[in-house]
């Protein structure tokens, strides 16, 4: 009779511990899933704003090339940069896990950024173009889009930071990798982003 009591008590204590372990792991697993989804949705937003910028370019090129004698080299540069951005095969729905892939994406987008800012600097030399309502609207949209890009990149980095911190914390550090939660790369400040673009006026090209 006493044995049953002891066995019952031991079993129930074991069951409780097991339940607690399962529940804690389950909860933190759910937590990791949530953070990982946060990174993915941040990534989708980043893609979204970059796409918004890419969509502005045909209109911009059309407007600018309508201006008399607009520098052709600036325009071809933009068209080429946009084409290389469009060729990036990158899943818009899940954030990249490979730092090299993110770096390549960033590099392509960075090339487009500098081509665009060069175009805006060059356009200062065309008063008629600058005065046109169409160009002014486009310029406002471009500036707003660049600002959105920096905001969404910041949000994305914040989400990645939360996620990376979580998978490296106790107790997740023991099992995060076995559930497939690996570290995710950040956006880095693009090299040369802090410097204004160099502008060369090549009057011979046309």
């Amino acid at each position, binding site marked *: 009779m006493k044995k*049953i009591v002891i066995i019952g008590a031991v079993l129930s204590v074991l069951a409780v511990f097991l339940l607690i372990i399962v529940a804690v792991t389950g909860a933190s697993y759910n*937590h990791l899933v949530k953070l990982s989804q946060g990174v993915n949705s941040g990534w989708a937003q980043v893609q979204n704003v970059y796409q918004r910028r890419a969509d502005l370019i045909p209109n911009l090129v059309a407007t600018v090339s309508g201006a008399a004698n607009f520098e052709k080299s600036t325009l071809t540069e933009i068209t080429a940069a946009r084409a290389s951005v469009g060729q990036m095969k990158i899943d818009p729905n899940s954030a990249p896990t490979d730092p090299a892939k993110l770096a390549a994406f960033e590099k392509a987008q960075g090339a487009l950024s500098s081509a665009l800012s060069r175009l805006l600097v060059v356009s200062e030399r065309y008063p008629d173009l600058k005065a046109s309502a169409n160009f002014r609207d486009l310029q406002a949209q471009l500036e*707003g889009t660049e600002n959105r890009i920096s905001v969404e990149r910041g949000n994305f980095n914040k989400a990645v930071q939360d996620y990376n911190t979580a998978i490296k914390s106790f107790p997740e550090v023991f099992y995060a990798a076995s559930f497939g939660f690996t570290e995710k790369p950040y956006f880095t400040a693009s090299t040369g982003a802090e410097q204004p673009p160099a502008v060369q006026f090549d009057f011979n090209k046309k």
Partner: protein
Amino acid sequence: MTRIKTVFAWLLALFCLTAFAAEVIPPPPAHYFNDYTGVISPATATQLDRRLEQFERDTSSQIVVAIFPKMQSDSSIEDYTVRVFNSWHVGQKNKNNGAVLFVFIQNRKMFLNTGYGLEGALPDALCKRIIADEITPHFKAGDFNAGLTAGVNAILAATKGEYKGTGQTAAGPGNLEMLGRPSSDLSLFGDYTPTIATSVIFGFFILFIGISIAAGKKGGRGWRASGGSFSSSGWSSSDSWSSSDSGGGFSGGGGSSGGGGAGGSW
């Protein structure tokens, strides 16, 4: 040599500190129209504030104007204002239908910042037009009253049909989403704890049953709860928020901005 390096490192550290200290995010404003400089006549300020408050009742969109003496940040204006916007949580939580017109008098700069939900009604190009065509000419002439009245008119006209109102403001009485906090912050548990909490409770429940069965086999009395009802005293609503006047002032509804909008200088 090392000494010079140390001194340099300290200087750099000091510079970093001051660089960080240089940015001030102003606290959430108390009104819809906030003039911290005194360039606007009180009559105009009150009138515009009333209109913006009524606008939130009618459409639920939160439009805020904030006039500061100068920008307290080394960042660019679009970068700084989006941080301020998001710390104020302008706009309703699920609609993100807020917009803030920031004016920095000494910098002679302004920025109209839109929340995610108003990017459709107030696209960047329109923001630019409002600033360049409606506001700037008056500001150049030194007439801030006329400039801001024209600006507010244009913003309200653009955003009028976008959302339906509830007849209330976020600061209005009986609204949990006041204080600019998302309502999820007010729930009893976060999103992480409940599973642990419930599982522990469940675990103890199993333990309790196990022991009672074991004890019951023994023929003993078992465990019995001894009276004492569980009273939840923590959530008696003390209703400390009863707003004293009907004009409750501004309170952010929990919206956020992704950096939309446009700026200009005069």
